[in-house]
C-alpha cells in the first residue's frame, strides 16, 4: 500500500522536500549553492575545502542510513546497463555538467529557486535531452 497525493507517492513529495531543505540549509548556514556537480569537481581543486568533502560524504551516508532502516522503500528497478554504457553516460554527465556549470541540484533545485535565467534554460535543455534520450535513443541503442 502506498499513499499518494495528486497521483504521486507521498514519499516522492517528502523526499523532494528533504532535498529542498538541505539546499536551503546549506545556503543559510554556509551561503553556498548545493550544486553537487560543482562541489564534486571543486573538491578535487587546490582549494577544495573540507566542507565540500563532508557534504559529498554525507550524501551516501544519509542515503545508506535510510536504506538500512527502510530497506523495502526503494531499490534499483532497471536492469544493469553494463560497464560500457555506465562509462559512456558517466563521461557525458561529467563533461556536460562541468561545461554547463551544473546538474539537477545546482540548476534544477537551487537555480529554479533563485529564478536564475541560466538555470531555467539549463533545466529546459536537460529535461528535453533526457526525455528524448530515455524515450528514443536508449531503446535504439538497445538499452
Amino acid at each position: 500500500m502506498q499513499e499518494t497525493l495528486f497521483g504521486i507517492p507521498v514519499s516522492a513529495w517528502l523526499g523532494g522536500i528533504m532535498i529542498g531543505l538541505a539546499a536551503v540549509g546549506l545556503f543559510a548556514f554556509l551561503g553556498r549553492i548545493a550544486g553537487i556537480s560543482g562541489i564534486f569537481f571543486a573538491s578535487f581543486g587546490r582549494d577544495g575545502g573540507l566542507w565540500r568533502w563532508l557534504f559529498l560524504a554525507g550524501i551516501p551516508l544519509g542515503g545508506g542510513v535510510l536504506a538500512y532502516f527502510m530497506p523495502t522503500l526503494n531499490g534499483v528497478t532497471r536492469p544493469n546497463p553494463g560497464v560500457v554504457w555506465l562509462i559512456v553516460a558517466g563521461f557525458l554527465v561529467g563533461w556536460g555538467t562541468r561545461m554547463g556549470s551544473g546538474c539537477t541540484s545546482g540548476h534544477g533545485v537551487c537555480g529554479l529557486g533563485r529564478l536564475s535565467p541560466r538555470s531555467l534554460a539549463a533545466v529546459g535543455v536537460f529535461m528535453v535531452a533526457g526525455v528524448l534520450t530515455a524515450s528514443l535513443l536508449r531503446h535504439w541503442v538497445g538499452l
Partner: protein
Amino acid sequence: MSFSTGLHGLVSLVMGALLGAGLYVSGMSDPGKVLGFLDVLGPWNPALMGVLGGAVIISLIGFQSLPQQMSRPWLESQFYVPTRRDVDRPLVVGTLLFGIGWGLVGYCPGPALAGLALGNGEAPIFLLAMLAGGVVQKRWEARNK
C-alpha cells in the same frame, strides 16, 4: 582544526546527509524510477514530478526570502551566489550532453553518490567516468582558449 572549521564541516555533513536521505526516500536514487519518468513512451512514472516539485517549492521559499531576512549566512561572512545571467553556448551544449548521459542510464551526480551506499557496483563506475569527463572537459576548454 578550529571550532569554526569544525562547525562548518558538521553542518555540511548534516546537509549532505539530509540530501542523500531525501534522494533515497523520494526514489530519485533509483535510476529505474528516473528512466520511468524520462521515458514518456513507456509506462510513465510521474514520481519525479513530486520530487522536483517538493524540492523547488522549498528552494523558492528559501532562496527568495533568506537574502532579505539576513545580511549574511549564519557561519560565513557572505553569500556565494553565481552572478551570471546570460545563456551562452557552453551552458546549452553542456546541459545537452548532461541530459543525454542522464537519459541513457538514469543517473545524475547526486543519485550516483547516494548509490555508493545502496549496494550495487554501478555507482563507482559511473562516478569515475564522470570525474574523467569533467577533467577532460577542463583540458579541452583550456586548449581551445
